[in-house]
């Protein structure tokens, strides 16, 4: 068994105003390796934590373009190159009749790209977390906001980080070892 090391310092909050304030202060103090676990998305908290706009829309857009290009190519190539069939004198290819399928495939691929892009950006599925056995941490999916500063942060030092967390007004400040 390897020796246990402190991986994070955790503190609980219950007031959305206080967690907003704490997030801004942690960010302003220069910490980067920290996270806040919340039972529901708190509006503006990501900004207070100093997070930049998600790149997910670009992933979705790329998926949409991929779907659209494929739809046009599929309809054009099958209808007017590989299998030319005269149906009621209709043109072999035209944008008008292609629009429904172009639209549907664009939507389908955008949705798939968004869905899988989301889990990729979140690093999920991941069924293990160093924090998972902490009872206070588990309440983050119920009714508590849990602030966690990780020891991987260059500014992390056990005593000062703990003291800082207490100053922020966190309840039950504790160390997590793994």
């Amino acid at each position, binding site marked *: 068994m390897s020796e246990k090391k402190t991986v994070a310092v955790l503190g609980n909050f219950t007031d959305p*105003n206080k967690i907003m304030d704490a997030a801004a202060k942690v960010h302003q103090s220069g910490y980067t390796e920290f996270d806040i676990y*919340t039972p529901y*998305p708190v509006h503006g908290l990501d900004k207070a934590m100093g997070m930049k706009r998600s790149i*997910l829309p670009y992933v979705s857009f790329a998926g949409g373009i991929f779907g659209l290009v494929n739809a046009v190519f599929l309809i054009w190539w099958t209808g007017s190159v590989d299998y030319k069939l005269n149906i009621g004198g209709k043109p072999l290819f035209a944008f008008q009749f292609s629009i429904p399928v172009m639209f549907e495939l664009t939507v389908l691929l955008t949705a798939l790209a968004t869905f899988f892009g989301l889990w990729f950006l979140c690093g999920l599925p991941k069924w293990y977390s160093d924090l998972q056995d902490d009872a206070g941490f588990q309440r983050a999916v*119920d009714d508590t906001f849990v602030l966690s500063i990780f020891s991987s942060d260059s500014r992390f030092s056990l005593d000062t980080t703990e003291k800082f967390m207490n100053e922020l007004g966190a309840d039950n400040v504790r160390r997590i070892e793994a």
Partner: protein
Amino acid sequence: MSVETVTKTAPRNVVECLDTSAYQVNPYPVEEPMREPLVLGNPSLHDVTVKIAGIIEGKPNLKYWIAVLICASIAGAGFGAIGETVITGIGVWGSNNTIGWAWDITNFVFWIGIGHAGTLISAILYLFRQKWRTAINRSAEAMTIFAVLCAGIFPVIHTGRPWLAYWLTPYPNQMQMWVNFRSPLVWDVFAVSTYLTVSALFWFMGLVPDLATVGNFVKGKIAKRLYTFFSLGWTGSMRNWHHYEIAYMILAGLSTPLVLSVHTIVSMDFATSVLPGWHTTIFPPYFVAGAIFSGFAMVMTLLVIAREILGLKEFITLKHLENMNKIILATGMMVGYAYSMEFFIAWYSGNEYERTVFINRAFGEYWWAYWSMVSCNVLSPQVYWFKKARRNIPLMFIISIFVNIGMWFERFTIISTSLHHDFLPSSWSYYTPTHVEIGIFVGTIGLFLTLFLLFSKYLPVIAISEIKGVMPGSQPSYHDDNHH
């Protein structure tokens, strides 16, 4: 950012918001304090978890299993009828050379339409920031998926050889053939399969945080593992919520035009033909309004029962039901307008065939179907002009059943009356369903209810994280960027 000025937490309910002392202490009251609260009884966040995850944790009683057994038996009988169709051929149905599309396509359009309310609630009302949707979106989305599954059965068995249904999709094959993209029936394949996929993805994404909550809540070892497995290991990290909210917005933005496109394309199956009674430009908006109308009626039918049985009255309040009744009234008026406009155009076009078809629709052999449709869809929702009626639960249950019946008759009227008198009087015919068709339709109702019953017991019926986010005092009482 001056946080020190906020010395008191945000008011927790309407009464506190109306208390002027709360304003003096907190200059930023929660939004819209004059409105009826979305959650009654002022529960804490933990209470919400206990209430909704508690439904899953609790043991279902005998009545529940009897209900499941009955519905599943009906579904089983339906599959028996499907088996008879597949083994013998679609000759066991009442449809004939003149009336080639009958109950099967009626039921297909009916079920697809039911699904539309779920997407409207989950996507369109989300984009319009209608916070009341959070109590009903999960069950409405579930209903969408189950309804689309039921709908999908019909075109597949209508092909006669359902084991070859994959021929509907374009794939390289030894026959050197491709599907015909000029046909609206192919558009339909793409529309319905995209709709089912996107609805399922959206639904699952919404479930992930709640599955984590449930996984944390349940005691059973296997249950805990299962819920945690499907929650993908969600922790509630704000760094994940950050992407999650964008993804939610994108999927809502996608589903909105998607839901409109699906019934538009379904209507094009009819509208692009040259048959009088089908060949009209009003069909796409008319079908979409009708779909939302019927879907809301089905949501109402299910929720009136579910809130009673599952004890969710503080989440699905009279306000929610009243809002849905307003939408039923509005969309009911839209279909009423479409019925009259169809008649007007039939007269105004000067087209003899068009005129004959419409007069025949209302006064011909199928008059009973037409007038059932009009009285259920146009007349019955008119009571919702009165607030008392909009908040009367037994009444809204009855009206929702009427609307479900009326919307079924609408599709039947459109399909069968237009077909049964075609251009050649010698081939005029009349259609009556056989026991097989009735069996299949009733079977899909059984299947739909079975799936919904299982869902309401084993998955969170209310979006836990979303409802927590709209409860009074759950959001910070100031925003540094002044937007909500």
